């Protein structure tokens, strides 16, 4: 797939809350090449969802330019799929019908649709729950159904907002592999927001680190490790430290900045604790 190029120049977004202006994003510049896998990490409230919504075309009232394949983004498009931070399944539709919503406008035959839907339900491990209603699903199952809905029409650009946050470690690992495989096979450009630094480094070609008030990019860590990657590769561990350090220094004024590169030093703190510091 030759397209799927994204360009963000000088993106700024201000919300008005209670009559006061709240700068959510400021001076966001990012070029994404076709087929690239971008992951975004940053403290809660630093504007990650807002940035995805701008790329998706849901938020058009902002400063700066958001461009997809040379065209300014003025609204949602089938060429850009979005998996929301919450599942947002329609409660009156079964799992199957919710996933099929992703194909309403795909122009497929009835049979092709049904096949694609059941293939994606299987992919996220919900076979047997085709006829269940959303209220009969657990939070993680609902999130997986939402992932299937976002994936089923294979958009050229796939935007994912903490898609695996509600999942157990085993399912998360499985879905990371599946997502990576699909994105690579189809040449999809992916932008994935996560709070999990391991996930960001494992999946991303580049990890974008953001900081809050106003939401801005503080560092971009390139992960050049070839795929398929091993989760325990030394290079990934180093990148992870770089991301954690960037998250830490971008936070609210830690007195002593951590070293950005600590090539040979093993981590002393448990990973989860560090990740929480960054995300809190």
């Amino acid at each position, binding site marked *: 797939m030759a397209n799927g190029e994204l360009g963000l120049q000088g993106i700024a977004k201000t919300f008005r809350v209670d009559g006061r202006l709240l700068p959510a994003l400021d001076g966001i510049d990012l070029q994404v090449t076709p087929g690239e896998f971008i992951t975004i990490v940053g403290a809660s409230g630093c504007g990650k969802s807002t940035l995805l919504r701008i790329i998706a075309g*849901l938020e058009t009232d902002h400063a700066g330019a958001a461009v997809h394949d040379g065209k300014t983004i003025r609204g949602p*498009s*089938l060429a850009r799929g*979005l998996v929301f931070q919450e599942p947002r399944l329609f*409660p009156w539709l079964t799992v199957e019908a919710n996933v099929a919503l992703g194909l309403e*406008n795909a122009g497929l035959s009835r049979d092709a649709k049904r096949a694609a839907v059941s293939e994606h339900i299987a992919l996220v491990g919900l076979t047997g729950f085709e006829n269940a209603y959303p*209220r009969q699903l657990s939070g993680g199952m609902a999130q997986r159904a939402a992932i299937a809905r976002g994936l089923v029409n294979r958009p050229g650009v796939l935007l994912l907002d903490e898609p695996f946050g509600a999942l157990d470690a085993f399912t998360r690992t499985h879905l990371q592999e599946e997502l990576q495989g699909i994105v690579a096979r189809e040449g999809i450009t992916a932008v994935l927001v996560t709070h999990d630094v391991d996930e960001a480094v494992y999946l991303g070609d580049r990890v974008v680190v953001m900081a809050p008030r106003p939401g801005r990019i503080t560092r971009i860590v390139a992960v050049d490790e070839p795929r398929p990657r091993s989760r325990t590769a030394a290079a990934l561990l180093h990148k992870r430290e770089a991301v954690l350090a960037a998250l830490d220094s971008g936070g609210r004024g830690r007195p002593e900045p951590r070293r950005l590169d600590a090539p040979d030093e093993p981590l002393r703190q448990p990973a989860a604790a560090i990740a929480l510091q960054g995300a809190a």
Partner: protein
Amino acid sequence: MSLLAYAPPRSGDFTVALLVRLRHAAIGLLVPLTLVLVWALASARGWLPEQVLPAPSYVWQNLRDMAASGELAQHAGISAIRVAVGFAVGAGLGLLLGIAIGLSRPVEDYVRPLFTAVAQVPTIGWIPLLMLFLGIGETLKIVVIAKAAFFPMVVNTAAGIQNIPLSYREVAAVLRLTRWQSLRRLVLPGALPSIFTGVRYSLTKAWTALVAVELLASAEGLGYLLVWSRQMFWLDTMLAAMLVIGLVGYVMDAMLAAAEARLQAWRIDA
């Protein structure tokens, strides 16, 4: 569905299910039966003169006589047709206007002020004016009933659509659902609970309007029977007509509830 009494579902146990239903029915009959009992007692003891409160047996006898002579069926049939046609026209148009208002800001801006003002005028207030234009024939009755059914339908349909969460509308936007697709998959199912509230209100209003219009401009129908028998002090006939109206209303409401349960399987435990 009672919100207060939560019984964990025991699937497959038919005897239990049957007992639960019987118990439910018994509870529902308790108050009406007590009332009839008090009524019987009151007339037997002569607490109230017979001209004011005839005995239940007397009313029952009257009801059976009217049923046997075909008089009751005739009145009830005429009223039922009026309500059915008026309700279908009024609620149908109300549904359409409610959808238009719910979906389109401009339509709402144009229609809402007039609509609100008109809705304040009680149905009875319209009858003299409408008589001037329509005479006192069948058209008048249908129009009055339709008008009564129209307003609650518009208000509830529009509110149901406007209350659909933004988060779902964003999903429809991202998936680029067409107008028709989002009407079918999002707007109508999302507004359905509110639309049903509208249907129930409409139906109640239609019956009320029926009585009002039959009172002023009819020589047949249950409303006529009610009013006429009251004026003639045939209180047994009046009570019989009241019973029939109440019963028909109850049956229609039960049918609506059943339709609602079928259409909203997603909300109710399987």
